[in-house]
């Protein structure tokens, strides 16, 4: 029988070393031992991803590594998530996410999405090249608390400003997160956004930092 610590270590290590099979195996074992699924997600998978974020910040890992770590994380999440009772999620939040019209790249968007998936949010993923009004419509339809948008190109990012204005006009309480290579913090502030992730890559570290904060909150709570 494996102890919780041993299995958490295996989950973490598996994410960091992008060993998807190890992560899947350890996730299954975690459930078989009767441990709490959400603990495995937060203290195993998410904790591993935090280490990945550090490695990325230190220029030891780059986007290819992070993408493979994300695959490993999702491998575990698919096994553990169904065993988290709704009451235990701690979060009952929804997010609308997508890459803005004119932008057909979605690596950054997908990495931010991972953060919400880990945290157990309901994610409404509009995909990429999303017309501006679709963000507004989907937010209204779902009453999501957060709208997260990314743009890789300078030329597409100005569209974000319009979406933010449209959403804030209809529902001032919605939090807006922006990310993408050309969006700087100044731009995000200027556009009236509430959160910001600096690039496809920095979306990784920003997203991961948010996981870290969620974990802290959970530990305190």
């Amino acid at each position, binding site marked *: 029988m494996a102890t919780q610590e041993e299995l958490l270590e295996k989950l973490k290590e598996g994410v960091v070393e992008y060993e998807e099979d190890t992560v899947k195996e350890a996730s299954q074992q975690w459930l078989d031992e009767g441990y709490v699924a959400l603990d495995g997600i937060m203290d195993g998978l998410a904790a591993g991803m935090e280490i990945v974020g550090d490695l990325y910040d230190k220029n030891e890992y780059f986007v290819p590594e992070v993408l493979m770590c994300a695959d490993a994380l999702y491998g575990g999440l698919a096994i553990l998530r169904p065993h988290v009772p709704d009451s235990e999620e701690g979060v009952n939040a929804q997010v609308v996410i997508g890459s803005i019209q004119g932008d057909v*790249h979605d690596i950054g968007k997908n990495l931010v999405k991972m953060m919400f998936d880990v945290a157990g949010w309901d994610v409404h993923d509009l995909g990429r090249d999303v017309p501006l009004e679709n963000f507004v419509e989907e937010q209204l339809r779902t009453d999501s608390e957060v709208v997260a948008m990314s743009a890789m190109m300078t030329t597409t990012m100005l569209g974000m400003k319009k979406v933010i204005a449209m959403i804030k006009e209809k529902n001032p309480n919605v939090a807006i997160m922006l990310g993408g290579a050309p969006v700087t913090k100044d731009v995000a502030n200027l556009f009236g956004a509430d959160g910001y992730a600096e690039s496809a*890559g920095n979306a990784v570290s920003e997203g991961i930092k948010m996981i870290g904060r969620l974990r802290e909150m959970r530990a305190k709570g």
Partner: protein
Amino acid sequence: MTELTPKERVMRLFKKEPVDTMPFFSGMGMVLMPAINELGYQFPKVHNNAEMMAKSAVMSSKMFGFDSVVVPYDMTCESQAVGNKISLYEDSIDILYPTIPEKIWKTMEEVEFPDNITELGRIPMVCEAIKIAKQEAPDHAIGGWILGPFTMAGQLLELDLLLKGVFKQKDMVEQVMDRITDMLIKVGKAYKDAGCDYMTLREMATGTDLLSPRTWKKVIQPRVKKILDSWESPKVLHICGATDLIVPMMNECGADALSFDIKNNLLETREKVGDDMLLFGNFDVYELPCKEETTAEEAVEAIKVNIDGTVDAVWPGCDLWPDIKVENMKAIVDTTREYGKKPSPAVGRT
């Protein structure tokens, strides 16, 4: 000394011969909305018509006093030429460049280019636009560009296939990169033969916010070098995003000039490459010419900082965003001429 023509200024700069003042030019798109409006064109239409493309490029340069005329504007020509559909966003009120919404190739194995690639899609049209631009603006330097192989791969395949493939399918990635490289050499040659005075290789998506320096050395550098070797001078290598860690490798690729965006620490780069290398870029194409809140005075100060940052030409760090503020754009070019009267590290003054 007599004033040089824009073309003379650029060509002398590339040879590191003294110039009258600092050039303002680019190797990336610099088409501007005031020019498109003046001609009565619409942005989505200029990508599909050689004459509209050439005339809007020439008008942009003449209206604002740029030294170069640059075509094409979008990154989808080669991908369209192999059969992908492009979105032109004709119904959008925003300025959006053409994109490839869905790629026909789903795996790396499928990547194969027809021998006559330069006769397909809009590539002949771009060649035609280069010729028209040359006729319409004989005093301007005509710039053409192509994407580097890794960035081009993102127009042909889902990028995460390649990114993950760097580890999981090394041989396949190398093969795909070689095929794309050979295709790009042909397209670059076609643009050059059509009359480009200089060429820029934009291997944009390979900064260290995406790839490791190790991957850059192994996968990117040999192909970048091969493409640059296939071109006669002048030739420029541009990379976006975090580039500080790969500057020395970029400097080994055979380009006459290196170009960066705002994430590069230019003063450190100058130390690394020495005073003999032409350095361009590091100029914020949104903040300075476009942002509503940026005054012309602030733009002027920022361009002075850019020039003091040891660039040899004022050269936007990316495509100029077409919807510029006229006052700021003019102030930026004027400052380049005035403040750029002093010599730059690689180029003296007459």
